[in-house]
């Protein structure tokens, strides 16, 4: 029984030995593989392929994978417990995490500061010299809570229905504590300047789970938090050993599921001081939209889902080696740009948006989303192709975002042409082609209005390190959170936005 089992993981080429019957989920999670449905065997995103050896088929796999897929060796990592040596190909790849290297204005202070972007999927932290504003170190990792579900609602479910609130809290406090320990390597000892403060930003669910606030109110109507303000801890409260016991500030949320990551985005873009109408759109695991001026900002979260990160797309993947990131048409054929000078293995969000834009232009995709021709497929670069179902997923996702923008602007009494600038936050905003985004009707603003803004959550968290006296109450008083699906015209607008513009 105690005979170790050798597992070879491709394409990393890594060989590991584990005890016979060890759940593969535990092994792979440590190596960055995500389990979007929490390892419940619902989403098929943790697919692995048996290249050599044998992995018995579990009953759940028989209902989720087709006989053809099973015969080809596809299995679900969340159900597998290898008992003999196997070589596996992991369908997911390592994640590229976006930090922030922008320059910014600040008032010099003293000592060190740490800014943390607590994302649903990834964690990024930076160590700053508060006297020079220089970034001294960066550290990032996956959010370990992801083993309990990829999106915020499955985390809430795990906390409420599976009694997991304390476990999720311990996960995240531990992971950020380790990130901070990494950052401070080389910055400890009597010579090192003291850490003055630590600022953390994240969405409302991350806020609650980190701060130890019961998420039950977020699990039921009206899905409104009861306590979502600034939370202040000492490092020792969190079990972190930091010389000087620096204060840790989790910045306040804005309402509903829209948290301090968007508030930090306001600080980074100075949206809350703007005379002109501007917008901030963050399309990550959870999509958030905010539009407004210094007088009034309206924000909302959207059910855009993971399509823009390659989720729910048959050959979708994150923006990493082997992913198609750009598609253009030339000489009657399609040109695909692939990350890492590798042969194409899949397509990421920006590639998907490009592909559909090109497809609409050349008639491979019809305005109602239909793929003409008997096969209902849109081949890009072999072996990568889009299925009819992929186009439908994109229609749902882009319809939700476009509907959110329309509803917020309508509430502000504004039209898209009144908007002077739209900041696209996050990795997707950095890679997306603005012309393509407009062509598919995702973001209907001229290219010169749309500005990729990088990781505005992290930048805002850094800015907050230099200005400990930010008047959050004054910002929060001007921000109104709305529930998009409660708008009487939501269904009409959402369904209307599911189609693609005709030209």
């Amino acid at each position, binding site marked *: 029984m105690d005979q170790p089992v050798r597992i070879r993981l491709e394409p990393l080429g890594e060989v590991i030995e584990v005890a016979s019957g060890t759940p593969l989920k535990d092994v792979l999670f440590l190596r960055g593989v995500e389990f979007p449905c929490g390892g419940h065997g*619902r989403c098929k995103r943790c697919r692995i392929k048996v290249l050599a050896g044998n992995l018995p088929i579990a009953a759940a796999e028989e209902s989720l994978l087709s006989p053809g897929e099973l015969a080809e060796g596809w299995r679900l990592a969340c159900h597998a417990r290898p008992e003999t040596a196997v070589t596996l190909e992991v369908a997911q790849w390592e994640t590229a995490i976006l930090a922030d290297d922008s320059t910014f204005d600040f008032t010099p202070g003293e000592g060190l500061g740490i800014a943390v972007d607590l994302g649903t999927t990834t964690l990024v932290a930076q160590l700053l010299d508060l006297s020079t504003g220089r970034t001294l170190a960066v550290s990032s990792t996956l959010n370990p809570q992801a083993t309990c579900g990829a999106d915020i*609602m*499955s985390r*809430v*479910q795990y906390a*409420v*229905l599976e009694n997991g609130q304390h476990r999720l809290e311990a996960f995240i406090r531990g992971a950020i504590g380790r990130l901070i320990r990494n950052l401070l390597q080389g910055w400890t000892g009597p010579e090192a300047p003291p850490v003055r403060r630590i600022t953390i930003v994240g969405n409302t669910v991350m806020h609650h789970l980190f701060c130890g606030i019961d998420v039950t109110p977020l*699990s*039921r*109507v009206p*899905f409104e938090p009861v306590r979502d303000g600034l939370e202040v801890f000492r490092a020792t409260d969190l079990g972190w050993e930091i010389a000087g016991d620096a204060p840790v500030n989790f910045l306040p949320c804005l309402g509903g599921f829209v948290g301090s990551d968007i508030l930090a985005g306001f600080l980074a873009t100075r949206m809350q001081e703007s005379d002109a109408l501007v917008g901030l759109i963050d399309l990550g695991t959870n999509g958030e939209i905010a539009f407004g001026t210094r007088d009034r900002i309206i924000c909302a979260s959207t059910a855009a889902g993971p399509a823009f990160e390659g989720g729910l797309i048959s050959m979708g993947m994150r923006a990493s080696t082997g992913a198609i990131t750009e598609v253009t048409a030339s000489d009657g054929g399609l040109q695909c740009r692939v990350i890492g000078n590798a042969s194409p293995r899949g397509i990421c969000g920006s590639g998907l948006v490009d592909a559909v834009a090109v497809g609409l232009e050349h008639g491979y995709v019809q305005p*109602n*989303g*239909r793929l003409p021709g008997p096969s*209902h497929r849109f081949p890009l670069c072999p072996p990568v192709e889009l299925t*009819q*179902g992929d186009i*439908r997923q994109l*229609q*749902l996702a882009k319809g939700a975002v476009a509907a959110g923008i329309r509803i917020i602007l309508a509430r502000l009494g504004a039209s898209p042409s009144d908007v002077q600038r739209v900041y696209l936050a996050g990795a997707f905003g950095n890679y997306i082609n603005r012309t393509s985004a407009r062509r598919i009707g995702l973001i209907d603003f001229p290219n010169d209005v749309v500005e990729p803004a990088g990781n505005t959550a992290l930048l805002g968290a850094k800015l907050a390190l230099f200005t400990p006296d930010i008047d959050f109450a004054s910002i929060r008083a001007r921000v109104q959170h709305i*529930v998009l*699906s*409660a708008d009487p015209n939501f*269904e009409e607008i*959402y*369904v*209307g936005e*599911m*189609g693609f513009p005709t030209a």
Partner: protein
Amino acid sequence: MPDLQKLYDAILNGDNKAAASITKEALAQAVEPMDLVNKYMIPAMDEVGRRFESEDCFVPELLLSARAMKGSLELIRPLLAARGTEPAGRVAIGTVQGDLHDIGKNLVASMLEGGGFEVVDLGADVSPEKFIAAIQSRRIDVVALSALLTVTMPTMKTTIEALTLAGVRQKVKVIVGGAPVTKEYAKQIGADGFAENAISAVSLVRKMLAEQPVA
């Protein structure tokens, strides 16, 4: 005599104005209302459903067709009611308590109407008491529960339990659906059926009512 094939086309293509005008014309010329429904409208919706299943059309087209169907049905229903004609079955549908999502539920409701059933749409965030009241007052054959969130899914179970406690569970068939719901879950909470999408909900209800006419 209007060309009734055009009614079929109007519903298939989601043209609600054409559907209503042909229906009006046909009724004015004393065409048998049940023929309009059974020979043209329901087959058109069945074709829309078939196209949806084969991914030839999507939610927007489905909704347009359903609206065209609904517009025609509203013209026909008063005539049927005046004659005392009973619908193929009555379905009470709602998104369970605590869940506000209703697009999916509305699609199912539209498709069921398109399939010839009378639908009592109780809306979103529906308490078990409202379902029970509907069963007691409206001669409901099937109760359809929708939930879109994993956190509200367990409310489907408590709703079914409430029907049992109120003594109305045996009077109806209960079907469940929604993105996180699975066939296994449906069985586990004691539902009579599960539908993957709006199209299969129609065939599920048809099959249930054909197999075992509810008293």
